[in-house]
Each structure stands twice: as structure tokens, then as C-alpha cells.
């Protein structure tokens, strides 16, 4: 379920390392908690993000949630498909529902994040 090559945060974001860059999104658990997602407030390309800074906001029918950047970096791309089809976040949160791509400031920040099996254990702990 949770891709082995992703890193995960306690706020249910994932980051996939691609060279010096990372692709960022929200996990399947997060999209399920949010319910039907209707709108995503996306940031601008070129924005600098600090660790755990809000990337943007996801609006579902019944709630609003911030998405936080797992690591510090510079936004190099934003998934414009989401402005037309926000429910990509529900349908394919680990793939087509990616939110931003950023140039990672410090790769060693990834060491502080969870790997897939740790994240799955973390989720089991939540549901207990």
C-alpha cells in the first residue's frame, strides 16, 4: 500500500526523492480522513519553504486542512492538474495526486522521516 521508496511524516505527507529534488503529496490515510476533496490552494513556483511550513490548503466538503512540507526547499513545480481535478488527491494520492516538486535544501532532513513500514506501524497505533 505505502510505496517503499517514499518518506513519510506524522502529518501524513509523503516525499519521494528524485535526485536533488523531492516530489511531495499526502498519503492515502490523509485523503481518506479528509473525505471528498474539492479544492486545493496551491503555492507559487519559486516559493521557499521551511521544514513543516504550510505548502497550501486542501478543502474537502466538510473540512480544511493544511499540507506541510516534510523538508525545507524551493518549489520548482506545482501540480496544475489539481486545480481542475482536485479529487486526484482522493483517487491517486501517491501518484497523479502529487502536489509540489521541490529542490531539497538539506538531504539529511530525510533521515528524520519515517519509511513505509514505520509509517504503517504509526497508522496502526492511531487506529488503536
Amino acid at each position, binding site marked *: 500500500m505505502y510505496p517503499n521508496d517514499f518518506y513519510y511524516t506524522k502529518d501524513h505527507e509523503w516525499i519521494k526523492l528524485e535526485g536533488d529534488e523531492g516530489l511531495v503529496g499526502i498519503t492515502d490515510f490523509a485523503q481518506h480522513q479528509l*473525505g*471528498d476533496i*474539492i*479544492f486545493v490552494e496551491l503555492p507559487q513556483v519559486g516559493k521557499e519553504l521551511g521544514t513543516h511550513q504550510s505548502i497550501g*490548503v486542501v*478543502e474537502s*466538503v*466538510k473540512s*480544511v486542512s493544511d499540507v506541510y512540507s516534510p523538508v525545507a526547499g524551493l518549489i520548482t513545480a506545482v501540480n496544475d492538474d489539481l486545480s481542475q481535478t482536485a479529487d486526484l488527491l482522493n483517487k491517486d494520492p501517491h501518484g497523479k495526486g502529487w502536489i509540489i516538486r521541490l529542490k531539497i535544501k538539506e538531504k539529511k532532513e530525510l533521515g528524520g522521516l519515517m519509511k513505509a513500514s514505520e509509517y504503517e506501524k504509526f497508522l496502526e497505533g492511531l487506529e488503536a
Partner: protein
Amino acid sequence: MDKTRFNELHKKLGAKMVEFVGWEMPIEYKGIIDEHMAVRTRAGLFDVSHMGEVLVTGKGALAYVQWLTPNDAARLGPGQVQYTALMTPESTFVDDMLVYCMGPETYFLVVNAANVAKDFAWIAGHTKGFDVKVENQSAAYSQVALQGPLAEKILQPLTDVNLAGMKSFWWARGKVSGISCLVSRTGYTGEDGFEVYTTDPNPGPVWTTIIEKGTPLGLLPIGLGARDTLRLESKLMLYGNDITDQTTVLEADLKWIVKLQKGDFLGKPVIERQLAEGLKRKLVGFELVDKGVARPHYPAYVRGRRAAEVCSGTFSPLLKKSIGLVYLPLEATAVGTEFEIGIRDRMAKAKVVPTPFYKRADRK
């Protein structure tokens, strides 16, 4: 948390449960949008057992109901239901409610789950001078609501109550799946449908047989999430959001439940004064013009000045837009008036629109 008698059934159906005014209730099963559209196009079943029921009996029962409410309960014969409100002397709301006439000395009041204790204390607290007995029957009752165009088709095979002959806002007693019930053609969704009340301590079959009968026709169980989006599209009030003890019945655009000629009632003098002086603000419907969702408590600005807070606001699954209700100063209440709503750090354009946002094609 309190649990309704259908609690385990929701969990078996995979409901996401939440706490709501002290009750453990299903917020969604399949998803709010799917559930919402099921009710609009086929049917949905809601557990609404958390609502409150108060019985008013005695020779003074009608006179007492007339005193507590602005609508004219004298128009009701046994078998009829009326939407009305419990009013304060300031013509603001203690709650909105339904009054079921069970006879000239018997009135069955159905109130919001959030207000059961408060409403019962209010109803029991104004009886001086009236020959009435007031009984809180909420704990005994379980209730489900079956709503949608297929509601009658699904329920009729399960009941001896003649549903085809039941007009909107009428009720009757009968059996549903062998269980004694009160069935009314009422609801909180804007669709045709029925509310089914029972004091049977084992009401489970009412839920399970309706699910069984309805599922092949596309019926879904519906949670509180879709209950809110459905009622808002139909501009049905939610106490605490749209009507409170700070909003008058005229400001709330509910003049139609006020029948001044019926006699005196709590709040009447203030209503008469407001009719003479005019209103300063009124509840209107809006839709967001810019992207986003305007939610309760977001600030509303008229010509740059902060004027109010959004009362109810959500994303309408049917209309696919952000809709809501807000009290605007009278000069900004004309349909088409543009104003702004603060959504986090930006000002989003909104405009006043006619309500209800959705009206079903046929009305029984």
C-alpha cells in the same frame, strides 16, 4: 457518549463515527458526495434517534402550544404536522421544531438533538396558568429518516400505513416490519420522504429491512455530513448556526411561520415592533464567486466593512459551488449584491442569490 439503538449497525456498515452533541453518530459511510447524490436521485436512510421528543397533554395543551410558538397550531387536526419554533419573549429562538397534533389535548413536539435538555426545561418552565402535563420522551424514541424520490417505493412494502395517501406534513401510526411506529411525511433534505419513530426497545429491524429493501434500488445509509449539505441546499435552518437566541424570527426570513392573527404568543410584541420599524439585517443565501469554500464563522465584508460572520457554509455536491447563509445589513440583501468573505489570508468575492439553492421538481 450516548449511543442510539442502531449504533452497532452503523459500525457494521463501515461508518466513520464522530461525537455530535454527546452522541456517537455516523458522519459518513461511503462518502459525503455519494451519499448526498443518492438522496437527491434515489434514496438515503438516516439514523436521527438523537432528536428529542416532548409530549404536551391536557385541556390546556393547544393553548400552551399556541403561547410557546408563533405558528397557528389551531390549524392542525389529528394527523397533521407543522414547522414552528420555541420563541423567547424577544422573538429570538430557543429552537425550531415540529409540532405533531395527536388530538385536541395531545401535541407531540420534536426538537433538535443539541437542545433537548434546554428545550424540555423551557417547555416545562412556562406552564404556570396552563392546564398541561409535559413529558420528555426522548430517551424512549428511536427514529430514522428515509428520504429521496424512491422513499415511498422502498417503504410501502414494509408497512401497513398507506403512504400513497399520505400528504406532506401528515402522519399516521402503523407497523414497519412488524414494529409499531409513527410515520410522517416530513424530513430535513428537501426531498420527498418519511420519518419513522418508534419506542420499541428493539428497533433494529426498522433499519435493517429498509436497507435490505432499498439497497438493490440504490439506497445508501447517510451520515451527518451529507445531512448538513442536503439541508443547506434546501435552505433548512440549523439551530446554533442560522437561528440562535440572538436572531429574531423576522431577521431569519421565517415570517411564514408567524401567524399574528392567532392570538398572543411569546415574542409577539417584538415581532409587531419589527414589522413597524423594519429590519436592520436579514438572513440571505450566497454563493462564492471566487474559488474556495466559505465556512461557518468566516467574516463577511460589505463595501470593505466587516458586517457579519457566515452562519452556514459548505460545498454543494449537487450545484458544485460554495453556498451558505449569512445575516447581511438590509441594504446588502438584494439578490445579486456582491460582497466579500475572508478566507484565510484572502478576500473572496461572493454574491447574494435566491433561496432555496435547490428545489425538487415535484412537491406532494
